[in-house]
């Protein structure tokens, strides 16, 4: 038996744990006690999640589609075929007819390589990953306001914040370790404000709980800021010295009518006033937010409103004071950092910047494509010369995770060629022409970057299952077959290249990650200790920028035909599209089947009892699943999680996006409910 320290592969809290290995199999985990986030415990997923590693459904050899069926093939056959078909499409229709999806589940090194493969080999900027579906508004919104779209502070600082405002984050379920720090803060006498349409568990501990209607965040945020302005609770000195565009912004706020707040969001002004005073009157306050803020057609507006509020009260640029967007996937922060995005190269360096492009061209010894890239959603909706004909998808499952699944699946089926590398035959892989078996986190080396920008090691504990291979090796092999050999002996060597080209990762070397618990970017050089909180002294972009934001209602709201709001999200026991968590005994036992949360009063009107089967229909499609009655959802609103393939929530959602960043509005659409006898 031996034990290998590594980083959890589920959420972006980034717990470190020991995998216990016996006879080449992972048989248990032990949390690290010294690790500053794990602190000796894990959530249910961390404790039990490793089980999927040895599940019998793991892909053990490459598959090629022959006569409509996926059949076993050798690595050489499979890779040759992928290389040949991608090259063909590229020659006939150009690089922009190809698309690549990278993954928040894979390592930094793998994301970097796939991004490089897309740009240097396929000559396309059509490279994106699931951050599009979760925090693209953060990357852009906080980027606009502060100059950097990540958590401004580290997680443990939460324990010492005086006021914590949590909105659009079901923290106890989705970021359990972060909730643990919130509990620590409460025990020290800090105040908690929770603003969420659902009565999440954390609301029971809130000193103030506000329940806005879905999709009305700009309203209550503007209202709260107007109160702060009117009551003179703002931080004048901070605004003057550190920000710009305040005059226009304050004019904008002055015109805002507080009467609107209650009418639109349902929050009483007096309650909002209490919250405003509580938040604005202390020195150290943090805002924690997540998908509830970003997954709207106005996601960027929501994020920028949050940034406005933090600047208005001077709640940035200090320890224990700032804005914390909680990233979901274990390495979605890293995938963004690595430039697996259509518009940026690693470290958020713009591809449009001539000098930056040169730097990469010189190192990579090839030309980079100029045509702007498509987003993840865009790749499935293009027509004419925007049409994507061939795709390479690594560790993503759009056939479950994208909105309006019928349309998404049609688009997948219509591709001329699709290659997927994954650890299981996911819903997406079933559409593929070639499926490449990838190694899981337990079978490879690399790094993940957690939500607090902490770069940590992932260490190989066992050999790859069957004939599977780590994604970084798959990409190298493929690239070599497309006349662009990539020779890396290990992920450490890839990181050396990343450090060379990416200023914020400039000091990240594997030997430095061996001791201590990772490094926080920005870490520009070898001697730099890393940066737990950002914007110290001044914002990354120079001065923080206020923007005037006005409310836009959600794309689709209930009407006579579809009288309910539907909001979607995740639950504690499962992980995203369920390909891993549903194969873990303890997790699938915890929540074995799909369900829709309905308010008991609505259920009564519908004649539906707990655990009855219900049909939920939207303009896009319908699913049937079990009813779960709970007061946690308000009347006229239902909640469905998107983990269950037999009743995929995303059949119902629509694909209209925030125009600036392309995030779909997963959090609001309209549905109809009926009991099924």
């Amino acid at each position, binding site marked *: 038996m031996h034990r290998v320290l590594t980083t959890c592969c589920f959420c972006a809290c980034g717990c470190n744990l020991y995998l216990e290995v016996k006879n080449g199999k992972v048989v248990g985990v032990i*949390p690290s*006690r010294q690790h500053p986030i794990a602190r000796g*415990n*894990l959530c249910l997923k961390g404790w039990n999640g490793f089980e999927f590693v040895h599940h019998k459904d793991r892909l053990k050899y490459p598959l090629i589609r022959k006569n409509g069926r996926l059949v076993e093939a050798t690595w050489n056959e499979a890779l040759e075929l992928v290389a040949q078909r991608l090259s063909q499409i590229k020659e006939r229709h150009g690089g922009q007819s190809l698309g690549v999806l990278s993954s928040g589940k894979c390592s930094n090194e793998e994301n970097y390589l796939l991004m490089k493969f897309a740009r240097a080999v396929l000559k396309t900027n059509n490279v994106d990953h699931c951050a599009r579906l979760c925090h693209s508004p953060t990357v852009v919104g906080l980027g606009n306001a502060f100059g950097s779209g990540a958590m401004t502070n580290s997680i*443990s600082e939460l324990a010492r914040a005086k006021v914590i405002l949590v909105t659009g984050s079901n923290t106890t379920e989705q970021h359990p370790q972060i909730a643990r720090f919130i509990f620590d803060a*409460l*025990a020290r006498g800090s105040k908690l404000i929770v603003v969420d349409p659902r009565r999440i568990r954390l609301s029971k501990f809130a000193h103030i709980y506000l329940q806005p209607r879905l999709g009305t965040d700009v309203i209550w945020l503007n209202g709260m800021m107007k109160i702060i302005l009117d009551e003179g609770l703002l931080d004048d000195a901070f605004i003057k010295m550190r920000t710009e565009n305040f005059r226009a912004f304050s004019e904008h706020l002055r015109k805002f009518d507080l009467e609107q707040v209650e009418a639109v969001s349902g929050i009483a002004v007096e309650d909002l006033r209490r919250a405003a005073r509580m938040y604005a009157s202390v020195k150290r306050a943090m805002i924690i937010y997540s998908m509830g803020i970003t997954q709207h057609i106005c996601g960027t507006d929501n994020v920028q409103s949050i940034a406005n509020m933090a600047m208005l009260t001077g709640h940035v640029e200090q320890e224990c004071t700032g804005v914390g967007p909680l990233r979901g996937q274990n390495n979605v922060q890293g995938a963004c950092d690595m430039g697996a995005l259509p518009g940026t190269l690693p470290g958020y360096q713009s591809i449009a910047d001539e000098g930056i492009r040169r730097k990469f061209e010189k190192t990579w010894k090839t030309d980079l494509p100029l045509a702007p890239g498509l987003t993840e959603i865009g790749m499935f909706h293009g027509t004419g010369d925007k049409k994507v004909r061939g795709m390479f998808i690594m560790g993503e499952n759009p056939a479950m995770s994208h909105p309006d699944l019928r349309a998404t699946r049609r688009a997948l089926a219509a591709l001329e060629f699709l290659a997927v590398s994954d650890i299981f035959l996911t819903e997406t892989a079933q559409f593929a022409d070639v499926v490449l078996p990838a190694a899981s986190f337990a079978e490879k080396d690399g790094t993940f970057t957690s939500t607090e920008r902490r770069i940590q090691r992932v260490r190989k504990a066992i050999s790859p299952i069957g004939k599977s291979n780590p994604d970084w090796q798959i990409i190298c092999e493929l690239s070599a077959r497309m006349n662009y050999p990539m020779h890396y002996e290990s992920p450490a060597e890839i990181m050396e290249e990343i450090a060379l080209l990416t200023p914020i990762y400039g000091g990240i070397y594997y030997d430095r990650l061996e001791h201590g618990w990772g490094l926080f970017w920005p870490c520009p050089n070898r001697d730099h200790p890393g940066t*737990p909180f950002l914007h110290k002294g001044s914002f990354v972009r120079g001065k923080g920028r206020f923007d005037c934001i006005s409310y836009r209602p959600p794309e689709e709201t209930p009407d006579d035909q579809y009288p309910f709001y539907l909001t979607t999200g995740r639950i504690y026991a499962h992980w995203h599209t369920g390909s891993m968590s549903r194969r873990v005994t*303890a997790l699938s036992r915890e*929540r074995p089947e799909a369900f829709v949360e309905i308010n008991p009063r609505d259920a009564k009107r519908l004649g539906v009892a707990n655990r009855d089967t219900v049909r939920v229909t939207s303009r896009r499609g319908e699913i049937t699943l079990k009813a779960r009655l709970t007061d946690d959802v308000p009347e006229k609103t239902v909640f469905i999680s998107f983990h269950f393939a037999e009743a995929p929530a995303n059949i119902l959602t629509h694909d209209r996006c925030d125009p600036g960043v392309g995030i779909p509005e997963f959090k609001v659409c309209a549905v109809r409910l009926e009991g099924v006898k």
Partner: protein
Amino acid sequence: MPDDVILNKEHLKSFLRKIAKERELIAPVKNRHGDTLFEVVSSVDDVTFDLETRPVVSPKSFFLPPTETLFHYQRKEGKYLFKEVLPKLSRVFFGLRSCDLWAILFLDVVFQEDFKDLYYLNRRQDTILINVGCREPMKNCFCKSAKSGPFLTQGYDLQFTDLGDRFFVEIGRPRGRELVEKWDYFFRPATNKDRDEQYEIVLEAESKFERIVDFDTAISRFMNNEVDDALWEELGDRCQGCGGCAYVCPTCYCFDMVDRPISDSEGERVRIHDACTLAGFTRLAGGHNPRHERSRRVRRRFYHKLPFAQERYHRPSCVGCGRCVEICFGRVDMIHFIRMVCERPEKSSQASLRLGEILLDAGLLSAEGLKIALEKQAGTGKPLGTQLVEDGLITTEEIVSALGLQLGMPGTPETGGVIGR
């Protein structure tokens, strides 16, 4: 050979080296990342024994691993073939803490009282247990209150006491004596001076506990059904269902059994660790769960640890190691629980009145409604909260929301684990 001997510290590694030749040596070792874990020691020279820190997980996992294959099965020509996987191990634990050793003795009872669990016993039977008494209890240790430390009076094979330059070694069960006799040249008989010194150390250690926990009061209040419902509700809300408390607990022994196919024709039956705070633990086929609310599961957990164990084994099954205290996400641990039970006013008419007042204040209940419920309650003897909910005068959620603000978190400023950097 007398019942107590002295081992000079410079001979410790030599002694352990000898033992390690004959059986698997398991000891608390601080690894290069700074974590202390029980490790199988293959060479005594390469490791840093850490006798000061409580290992992250208890020694339980060496007897009841988190995943354990019981047998392989194979289907061949319509028939099933089974192959049992029975472990057989000779082991010695060195450097157990007293609480952890005591916990193993507790598991010994559980795994052979009704049914002899061969998987457990085969690992356990040929295992020698050596503890090192704790001179310095850690911050959250409360073994003294749990009567399982910091030093033991029985149950060990050998018990070590650190006397500075030497160990005072008490010989307990016969296998301990065998070890000392076999390598007697490392030991010398203890003198009265050694004994006096050891006695002082034990007394001093006992005076050092920061945590005094009143098990007796908690158990009796629990047994007399005097624990307020609101307390369970609050604990239920604070539990995040991680399972950690059961996984790290040295005496929690529940497991789940599953068949795991390896291919279409073969597979394994495994047992995996389980935790009573999980919904799946009690959910029945068909989906009904008698303990649907987390508060009910938390209640069940403490019931099992305290009154149930008290009745059945004449002591709580908690040994006071303090692990749950350090790791719980929401302070639903033994220390906080017992403190809450002991400090909160008893469930009584007075408590009912207080609850009534709170609800009136919060505008959730009319004075008329309260009067009716109080009258009824006098007859049924139910807690006021239950009565109100049953009469449809209020929902549980409303009570909790009203109480949430009033009760807040219990007043213990220290956090569980290490505050991160």
